[in-house]
């Protein structure tokens, strides 16, 4: 089983420096494209590989690049941005890549930038990833020194500048258009689409924003070809995927596995099964903003299409396992507290609706909730749905709530009937 993204990452050991990276074949993909691939060739190779965006939306990466105007209409300035603002609760896969093999990201970014002919690139990094910031800074410096970045890359005349930008710590910045606003020094509010960032992005110029894991796949696709990349997968989506499991499992962690392993394999084999005395009650398969799945879904293939068909989303591929001793109402309340706090305050449903949802859940937890409160929660899952709000934050927030109401409705009702949280004695 191949693990192209993580085979050279050894937790606990320092990250690969430039020399180490080159020893493992690093920057050979960059040399390859510079030796004779046109930007269009690169775009095509990535499109053919069926690489889908690893930030959660799962859109074909090569296709996304193809929307960048490559003629004069695109103008002289374009940007390539790595979205390293990993703030989805339960998600820590990009951190592994950033801290373990920073040059892999840098090489992927240079290739991606070349594919859209961008001359300026940014890494937008979550503020709390201090260790990643340090090694990225050093690695960018090394790459400049080695001629992989800067004025005349590998003597081809292609130019690319790369900057590390650390955010101020808002979940919203993970949304690509809010990230752009934040990078411009504005409030981290999302933008309406169209126009899409590919046409009018950072500073109003054509821009591609890709997730860290997505970009890390690029050098391997270039080196080994689209067919190889597709062959890594158990599903129609190309490549491997970094999966993660957290919760009351024996071995929480993150693993690079073929795209489409089953949830059962992940939890039972890789995460070592549930801790003694705990039963699996529900799973958020791809971070806090995805719908719960339950025991019945254990044999589900973890790829974009299969998870969607089961009523959830693969999201970031890093799952949170909820056990039977944890109150689903309290669990969801905790999430809604996060989402309400991270709402940017731009559109009414999110700004006013999420705090209401949070308060309703808290009153249920306190034992003062009513049947009407559950109805209101149910209504909010519809009112805050996609299209009703300005961006995907509130619809994402509603996913765990709506599925909790679907799968764990009894727990909600018991809070009302018993006028207390029935799990309370289990809280440690």
């Amino acid at each position, binding site marked *: 089983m191949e693990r192209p993204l993580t085979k050279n990452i050894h937790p606990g050991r320092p990250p690969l420096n430039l020399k180490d990276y080159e020893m493992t074949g690093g920057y050979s993909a960059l040399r390859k494209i510079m030796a004779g691939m046109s930007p269009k060739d690169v775009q095509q190779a990535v499109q053919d590989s069926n690489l889908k965006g690893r930030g959660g939306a799962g859109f074909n990466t090569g296709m996304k690049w193809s929307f960048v105007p490559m003629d004069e209409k695109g103008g002289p300035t374009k940007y390539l941005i790595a979205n390293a603002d990993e703030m989805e609760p339960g998600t820590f896969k990009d951190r592994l890549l950033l801290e373990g093999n920073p040059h892999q990201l840098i090489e992927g970014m240079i290739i991606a930038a070349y594919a859209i002919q961008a001359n300026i690139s940014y890494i937008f990094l979550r503020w709390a990833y201090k260790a990643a910031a340090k090694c990225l800074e050093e690695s960018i410096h090394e790459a400049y020194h080695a001629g992989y970045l800067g004025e005349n890359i590998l003597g081809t005349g292609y130019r690319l500048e790369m900057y590390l930008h650390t955010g101020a710590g808002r979940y919203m910045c993970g949304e690509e258009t809010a990230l752009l606003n934040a990078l411009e020094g504005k409030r981290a509010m999302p933008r309406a689409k169209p126009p899409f960032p590919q046409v009018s992005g950072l*500073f109003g110029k054509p821009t591609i924003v890709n997730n860290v894991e997505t970009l890390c796949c690029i050098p391997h696709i270039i080196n080994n070809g689209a067919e190889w990349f597709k062959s890594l997968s158990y599903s129609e989506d190309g490549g491997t995927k970094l999966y993660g499991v957290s919760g009351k499992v024996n071995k929480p962690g993150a693993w690079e596995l073929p795209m489409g392993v089953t949830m059962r394999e992940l939890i039972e084999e890789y995460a070592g099964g549930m801790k003694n005395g705990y039963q699996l009650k529900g799973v958020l398969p791809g971070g806090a903003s995805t719908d719960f799945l339950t025991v019945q879904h254990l044999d589900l293939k973890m790829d974009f299409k299969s998870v969607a068909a089961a009523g959830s989303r693969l999201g970031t591929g890093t799952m949170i396992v909820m056990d039977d001793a944890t109150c689903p109402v309290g669990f969801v309340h905790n999430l809604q507290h996060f989402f309400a706090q991270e709402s940017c305050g731009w559109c009414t449903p999110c700004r006013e609706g999420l705090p209401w949802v949070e308060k309703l859940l808290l009153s249920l937890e306190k034992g003062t909730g009513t049947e*009407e409160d559950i109805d209101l929660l149910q209504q909010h899952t519809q009112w805050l749905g996609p299209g009703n709000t*300005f961006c995907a934050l509130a619809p994402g927030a509603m996913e765990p709530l709506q599925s909790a109401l679907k799968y764990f409705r009894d727990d909600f009702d018991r809070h009302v009937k018993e006028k207390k949280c029935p799990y309370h004695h289990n809280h440690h």
Partner: protein
Amino acid sequence: MPTIIIDNIPYQVKAGSNLLEACLGVGIDLPYFCWHPALGSVGACRQCAVKVFKDEQDNSGRLVMSCMEAIKDGIRISVQDKGAKAFREQVIEWLMTNHPHDCPVCDEGGSCHLQDMTVMTGHDYRRFKYKKRTYVNQYLGPLVHHEMNRCIQCYRCVRYYRDYAGGHDLNVFGAHNHVYFGREKDGILESPFSGNLAEVCPTGVFTDKTLKQHYTRKWDLTSAPSVCQQCSVGCNILAGERYGQLRNVLNRYHSEVNGYFICDRGRFGYEHVNNVNRIRQPIIRNLTVEAVDETTLLTHLQQVINNRNLIGIGSPRASVESNYSLMHLVGKENYYSGISEDATFIERKIVDILENGGIHTPSLKEIENADAVIVLGEDIWNTAPVMALSVRQSVMKTAAREAMTQISTPAWNDAAVRERVQEDRGYFANLAITESPVDEWSTHTYHSVPDNIARLAFAIASKLRPELPLPEGMPEADLQLAERVAGALENAKHVVVISGSGPGSETLVRAAYNIARAVQEKGKTAGLAFVLPESNSMGAAMMKAPSFDKALQRIRKENNTTVIILENDLYRYNSTTDVDQFLDTCKSIIAIDSLNTLTTGKAHVLVPAATFAESDGTSINYEGRAQHYYQVFMPANPCIKESWKWLWKMKSLMAGSANGQEHHPDEILKQIESSYPQFTGISASAAPADFRIYGQLLPREPHRYSGRTAMLANIGVSEPKPLDDGDSPFTFTMEGYQGLPPAPLIPFYWRPGWNSVQALNKYQQEIGGPLRGGDPGIRLFDRNDKVASWWFNDTPEAFAGRTGKWLLLPQYHVFGSAEMSRWSAALDFLTPQPCISISQQDAAQLGVSEGHMLTIETDKERFSLPVAVRSDLVQGVVLAPAGFQSIPSLAWGTWIKIMA
């Protein structure tokens, strides 16, 4: 025109608009908050949701925000769809979770967009059972009151204040459900356009603080369409009265002039109407009891008017009707303008150019749509603020047009356009005496004395048209700048040149003409606008009466002269010694005015004049647009009358009768047309006094006007007969024609379901377009399309300092330089302390620093003020405050002495 199908009914709508504009445009009530016709769409509030259907088979549809959805031919949408209605109701419920239930004590109540939209969506019972979030309010100065708890986070305030008006000190802070709109800390709002926040805010966060001093609900106001009297732009306003006091001024939409916004001088400068300094009673000086009744006054006037040499002095702030009536009373040969010879010379040149120069003079809308603007000398920020706001729109719109084509985004998609535009701006060159906030938007700025600005302007014209003379000895830097400006004008399609009488330089006026004409000769659309000092300066100048100096020369040779001074404080426009001499020489001085001034202080007879709010009258703005304003209320004392009414009474006295024929304004305007061909067409600006709709008058009061039977109950229990001014189609009651009034006769905005100013949508032909039936006002210069044969070829010498002398130039202040607005306490508070400004080099030479007292000595005046040292002035120049009450009228461009 595309057709769209709304709830199964096809409508023709304007191409390029969005669904919300289309729905509102065809009269459908669709609630909204964050969208504003002047600010565009951003999709924040989610209030305007409608359903869009894929095709005829699609029954479920997709919920979209109508403000963010472009019109497509044949698109099927539903406003009445159950899901869409329920969502809109839900949005209100969300907004109401934190909105205080303080409507009864909120200033916005009764004219609140949030109230209207709440009722429109049908939201009633509250399901949110938790505490509301609260905020601390801020002190924002004397004009705007802040009450943040009422905020519904529509973001309009910051979008207006920052994006539209270019302000910096109002912003949005915080996040999630604790977003805060205010300043970084308490303090006076810096923008002179801050009052518009009260109209932009859909609820009571920002309200008119001056209204608060004498608060009245909208439905209790008696209002009429009026015209701002605070500068020569002539913004259309609505003025409201109750209990004999003028209570507030609101913007009155005019698509060609002020659009949706006015400046703070216009909005808050109305309180002279209520001031204790008003002349409320006829006064005959040196009687035992000076205040007299009308009969005594008329008897006395008969003596001093008849059998005397009678001369009249007109006024740039009095109406066309009043100026004409004075001229008619005294005879053309005895009628003088009342302003100095220097100012008359410049204004005469301006009128000559506008009448005969063959260059179009643009409306504010046309300035906004220009793709290159050049200002020569005039400090528009301080002398014509709303024109400055239009110049800002020009630079923004030009950049936006460019961006829109690049990314195929419609103009209404505000955030997307701004994102693309970034810091790009259209072309704007500000060539002015001093720095001003408009410099921030300009491509090129140049600060110097008027002669040097004129030289640069002549050089620009010469670059555009090499036959024109290039001033000699131009510094290389100036020549390069001229080259760059000319290049930018060459690249433009629609150029506007703005100058004015403010700097006191006729040379600048000529230079401005050369540029505009040179641009026009190149086949471009050229506009030439001149700012004048007062609301009716243009009307007065168009009468081409001799100056005050001519009156003074004449009176020196005459005796037994009675002078009638019409609404004019001669000391504002002429030197103290000249006015003193003039007034001392007159045998009798009759002053007709509304406020006591230095001039009325020397008059023998004071005739109380009505202010604009108590008058029907016409003023002519900078573009030659005659605009009629209507009486808002009748003064309690019938002795207070429009000046033109008094003058017609005096005319009767001359004929030997105390009760002559009454003349209505429209009749006077007709007479003006026959006396002065340059005013042809002006009578159409006023509705005939006998104009009726279905036999009905138009009510000045909304149908919800309250207290009519009670408000005078302390005087008598029977309801008095409604007043009747007889001069206009308006009545002082709530009864009358309740339909949509004609565009020039809109006394207030109200349509069923729309109590706030947003009702305006119902009065427009299309959203953001002209009013139904066409915008009011008659442009008087448009009749002339002949092209003059002249160019101006004499260029001035370069400025050179003189030993021991300084060139005196004006510093205007938006608050302080206008005569009437200083009687508003709030604006008086904002007026800066007057000072004399000199350059750093001169300060060093004179050995003075900031705050030292300096004395200025001109030929005729001498006064002392603290000094301000500035970096934007050249050596050898001194700036004195223009138009300040405490400072005598000064002759700009003359050489004066300074004593430390």
